[in-house]
């Protein structure tokens, strides 16, 4: 509850900051300070300290998983602010408003990580989506940004319509919006509504997390949006929708009486194959990262497939590892003058720190041991093996992870083994130290993943 209320207040504070001052460093300081406050308030709640005592009548349930995820999302956003706040302010004239919108998105993130009623799920997803439409189109003179924003808006509103139809059919079958099975009134004659509602909900959530075959909007939107906001969209927002997805289907699966693993496994296989194979053929690193985010979504979907203790730990590690590494890669990408693979040629010579840290981020995305990306993938696959069914899916995932090494290593190869200027914009030494910090965190959690996972239980 701390996070929901505080993030909404901070959003309003940032909007007023924009009225009173146009000084960029003041706005940045307020945003970073607010983010730090939000993170601390959420950690306080994780340790059992509630600032507000509000009876939500069972609509919100604050579980360890949700609160821990909130902390990860806020921590990642803090790093994102520290690394890229200058670039956020470069996008347009209304710098403070962009930060305000990001705080509103975080309010939605903390709602979807703790919802217990389909009404709150709908509101949370919309609170996340509507500011994102604006952020995507924030570069108003740029046609690509316009197109991305319109496409994202139409697709997002369409999938919201499908989601609502799913929710109402489930309500018709069970007489309540709660996802808690003990509150639902089963009625055998209406089970067909429940199943079709669940299916529609699955489709709309697959739209939001860009799982195949509903992924087609992702590359265009991620490519067209201003790069700083792509970074935010592809990491924190995506992980948050995954947490909502996992919460939503935790009870509904066993409830429906169908073999959902079959559908989920087909979606996972399609997502992994399409994401990885298409990523190989990209010429722009930004577009390659968009496809790689589809491929990574395929791994995160394993949490929906297996539903056991390992998959819960896996989704936490995955959201942490994926967010840190992707934020890092994008922070470097923003500084590049040329977004194609050739633009990275010879970066190791001109900017050795950038090249070394980018290598660590890419290794983590590919899932090489010693980085957190390895344990994230390991937990996901181990959870699937533990279910004892669909072993072919695990084998396919491992093959796809091997394919992904190809396109991640293309960047590393360009940086270290090709001749080129590797042109970047001016880089401050603080930025370099922050990149080293992020890379250090990736290796630290890659060796000791229990440092995070312990919080799930204690």
């Amino acid at each position, binding site marked *: 509850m701390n996070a929901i209320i505080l993030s909404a207040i901070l959003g309003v504070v940032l909007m007023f900051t924009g009225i009173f001052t146009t000084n960029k460093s003041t706005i940045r300081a307020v945003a970073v300070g607010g983010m730090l406050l939000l993170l601390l308030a959420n950690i306080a709640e994780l340790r059992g300290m509630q600032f507000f005592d509000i009876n939500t009548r069972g609509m919100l349930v604050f579980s360890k998983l949700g609160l821990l995820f909130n902390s990860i999302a806020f921590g990642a956003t803090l790093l994102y602010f520290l690394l890229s706040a200058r670039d956020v302010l470069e996008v347009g004239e209304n710098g403070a408003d962009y930060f305000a919108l990001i705080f509103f998105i975080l309010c939605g993130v903390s709602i979807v990580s703790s919802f217990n009623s389909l009404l709150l799920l*709908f509101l949370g997803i919309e609170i996340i989506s509507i500011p994102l439409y*604006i952020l995507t*189109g924030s570069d108003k003179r740029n046609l690509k940004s316009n*197109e991305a924003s*319109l*496409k994202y808006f139409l697709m997002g509103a*369409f999938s919201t319509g499908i989601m*609502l139809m799913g929710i*109402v059919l489930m309500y*018709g079958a069970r007489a309540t919006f709660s996802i808690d099975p003990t509150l639902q009134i089963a009625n055998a004659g209406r089970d067909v509504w429940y199943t079709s509602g669940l299916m529609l909900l699955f489709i709309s959530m697959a739209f939001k997390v860009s799982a195949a075959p509903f992924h087609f909007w992702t590359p265009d939107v991620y490519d067209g949006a201003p790069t700083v906001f792509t970074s935010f969209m592809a990491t924190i927002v995506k992980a948050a929708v995954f947490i909502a997805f996992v919460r939503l289907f935790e009870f509904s699966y066993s409830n429906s009486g169908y073999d959902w693993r079959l559908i989920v496994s087909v979606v996972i296989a399609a997502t992994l194959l399409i994401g990885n194979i298409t990523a190989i053929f990209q010429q722009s690193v930004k577009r390659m990262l968009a496809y790689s985010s589809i491929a990574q979504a395929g791994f995160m979907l394993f949490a929906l497939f297996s539903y056991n203790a390992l998959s819960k730990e896996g989704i936490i590690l995955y959201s942490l590892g994926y967010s840190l590494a992707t934020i890092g890669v994008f922070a470097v990408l923003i500084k590049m003058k040329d977004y194609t693979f050739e633009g990275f040629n010879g970066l190791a010579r001109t900017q050795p720190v950038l090249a070394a840290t980018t290598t660590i981020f890419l290794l983590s995305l590919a899932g090489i041991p010693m980085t957190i990306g390895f344990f994230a993938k390991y937990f996901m696959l181990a959870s699937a093996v533990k279910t004892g069914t669909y072993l072919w899916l695990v084998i396919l995932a491992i093959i796809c992870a091997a394919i992904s090494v190809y396109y991640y290593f293309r960047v590393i190869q360009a940086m270290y083994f090709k001749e080129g200027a590797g042109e970047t914009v001016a880089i401050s030494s603080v930025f370099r130290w922050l990149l080293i910090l992020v890379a250090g965190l990736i290796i630290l959690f890659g060796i000791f993943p229990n440092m995070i996972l312990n919080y799930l239980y204690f």
Partner: protein
Amino acid sequence: MPINLYIFLALALFSIGVIGVLTRRNAIIIFMCIELMLNAVNLLLVAFSKMHLADSMAAGAAPTLTNGIDAQLFVFFIMVVAAAEVTVGLAIIVMMYRNIHSVDVNFLNRLKN
């Protein structure tokens, strides 16, 4: 009236909306079709609300019972969120119109190249 008729009506409206979104090329009309989908949902919510109320009455509950009222509340939430979405959506469409003097979504295919 049996609930099935309401479901058929709502699903018909919803399908018209979906087909409109998939086939039309004008951003404003696509937008109208999305609104049609949302309003089909509103209609079905109200119908289900009445259905659950009638169910609990038939089960012998007190006449002041508020079963099914949550669906009617949900309708208001959908209306508010739809209004928020309209504000942002129309702003995006206007922004696009200013730049290219057209609201045709075929324009979007240029991004792929």
